[in-house]
């Protein structure tokens, strides 16, 4: 039998009615420890905000945590760089991460559902083979992927970055867990008894039940593509197709005879964090990963 006790959907945390109010006293050491952790994680981000408000000269001559007044100038300078190329990179990144993340979720959800809800020959083998994909680092795959995509003339296109991003072993792994935990077998059986086909059952019954988990898979795949560097770096020659990571790297590495554009890179980095931070804040309840949902037995 299955238990939905640990379904990864963001079920509201049960209100823990307490029997002993005295235990609710806030603990200073606990709070301080947590806030120290938060401070540690925030410091470099605060530094970026400060640094991106400085002019090129100030960046290297004034105390690093003191803000300055050049944030708007820096943004304008970055925006006018080669006719607003930075914003084009931003749009590209959103396309790669958004479209790639969306399609990747669909593919992962289908695969995860298939793996969780059916018994078939080769199931274990397929699952482990897909998981093993995690073991091979992207640095190694980029060149062979390029050579293979070049054979069909797809390099230097949006597709050359999108297609390899669609397969996500982690996404399939998580979807399998979500499908196993969130979609009870008897619900599927009931749908079948009503005469629904397999695909219809998946789309109309399973997907809605898995939805919160799938949003999570989407978010993580979105971030993974957003932060990807090696694949687009190798695939793309046309700088109008670059994502932000590759574009900023170019601003940083202009050869010995040019000063690195530190202010533009730092300002660009700050602006590129903002959309992700917004995703964190608005979709807070989906940012949770139950890697081992099935393991908890009631």
């Amino acid at each position: 039998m299955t238990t939905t006790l640990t379904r990864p959907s963001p079920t509201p945390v049960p209100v823990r009615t307490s029997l002993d109010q005295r235990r609710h006293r806030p603990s200073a050491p606990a709070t301080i420890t947590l806030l120290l952790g938060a401070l540690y994680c925030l410091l470099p981000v605060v530094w970026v905000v400060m640094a991106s408000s400085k002019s090129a000269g100030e960046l290297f001559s004034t105390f690093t945590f003191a803000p300055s007044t050049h944030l708007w100038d820096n943004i304008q300078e970055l925006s006018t760089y080669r006719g607003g190329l930075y914003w084009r990179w931003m749009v590209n990144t959103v396309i790669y991460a958004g479209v790639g993340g969306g399609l990747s979720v669909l593919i992962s959800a289908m695969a995860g559902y298939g793996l969780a809800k059916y018994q078939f020959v080769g199931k274990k083998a397929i699952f482990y083979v897909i998981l093993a994909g995690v073991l091979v680092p992207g640095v190694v795959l980029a060149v062979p992927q390029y050579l293979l995509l070049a054979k069909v003339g797809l390099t230097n296109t949006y597709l050359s970055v999108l297609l390899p991003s669609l397969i996500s072993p982690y996404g399939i792994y998580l979807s399998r867990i979500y499908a196993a935990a969130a979609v009870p077998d008897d619900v599927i059986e009931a749908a079948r008894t009503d005469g629904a086909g397999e695909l219809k059952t998946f789309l109309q019954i399973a997907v809605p039940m898995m939805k919160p988990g799938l949003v999570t898979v989407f978010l993580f795949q979105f971030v993974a593509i957003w932060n990807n560097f090696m694949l687009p770096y190798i695939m793309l020659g046309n700088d109008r197709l670059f994502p932000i990571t590759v574009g900023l790297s170019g601003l940083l590495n202009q050869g010995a005879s040019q000063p690195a554009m530190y202010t533009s890179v730092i300002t660009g980095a700050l602006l590129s964090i903002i959309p992700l931070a917004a995703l964190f804040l608005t979709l807070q309840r989906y940012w949770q990963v139950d890697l081992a949902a099935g393991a908890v037995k009631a």
Partner: protein
Amino acid sequence: MRLHTSLRLAAVVAATALLATACSSGGGDETTDGSTGSGEKVELTFWTWAPGMEEVVDAWNAKNPNIHVTVNKQDGGDPAVTKLLTAIKAGSGAPDIFQTEYQKIPTLVSSDALADIADVLPDGTKDHFAAGTWEAVTLGSDAVYGVPQDSGPMEFYYRDDVFQQLGLQVPTTWEQYAEVAEQLHTADPTKYLGTFSATDAGWFTGLTQQAGASWWGIDGDAWSVEINSVQTLKVAQYWGDLVEKGVIDNKPMYTPEWNAALNDGTQVGWLSAIWAPGVLEGNAPDTAGKWKMAPMPQWDGDNATGNWGGSASSVTSQSKHAKEAAQFIAWMNSDQEAVNILVSAGGLYPADIPGQAEALANPPAFFSNQPDFYTLAGQIAQTVTPFTYGPNVNVAYSAYNDEFGKATEAKKASAFTDAVQAMQTATVDDLKSSGFTVKD
């Protein structure tokens, strides 16, 4: 095997001696402004990382509606070459035109990445360049693998205000340089006359070039590797002593920390190249007018300098429009209008000799305190000594990073000379294991 024969002929002078000698400009004929004849519109792509290229390309596109060039800015590091080589292996994906650093030309030619444009280049292009510079793009053969764009003769940059304040003399020999370094550091222990950077192999190569080293050579059908020559060892020992004494810094250049040191005046000198004003202006804009440029300190009486940086424009072997691409790169690097833009927008020192006078009439804005900047630079440029690059510069350079990284951290002069030996071993082993014929 035309190339082989001619290479053999060119054995001694081979490869990339960047003698920017101000020899006569030759015919001085104008390159045609790219009228293709056929009405067909040609699209060319151009991979580069240098700033200002968009401006030059815009000027070209305005005048040549039938040959349209698109700039694609790339990352300027070593991986840009790998990216090109991967596209060459794949058979597609390479641009028509590629910005090539001189030291990478042998590697790219050896991978068949660059087209020989000898037959399609406008007549007289060669006459625009110094013989040594031209050899860098021909490797001493009859083939032509690009058109030189800029060069980087090395000079000594120093903070004039600090020198005057502390009563220091501008060093003209390396012996004096060592003395001044010590005087400065003693007077103010936070200040250094320079730093030995283990992350800038091209910089060290230039220093050894000045001392008369040439790390590779062609001897008949075999390569010779002479990284551990007496000249290189002399330079390594010299810097090792300074670092061991602690009078020269051992931190890498081009770090945020180094930028800060340029700003706050703790790096008082910089052994750099002709393009240094742009870097100083970008990194330490507030120090404008405080710097001055002088010739490199010398080893013995004769004036010599090395090269750091500089690149050519090449047509790749995948380009379907080599003729049009060759027209464009010839124009870009030898037409007066284009050269003016290269200087004003790109801040580089053009390899085109006839164009220098007009383009370099005024000193760089950052050095307006030194009106004869380019006159002096022109004299220095004539003293660049010959140097030959081999087909595995990348291996030697990455060995430099690792070995000198350890040596500068150890701060021992003996570690510096050991590092040179390790570079020699790594470079020779790599050539041999790839199957190159190497002369022992």
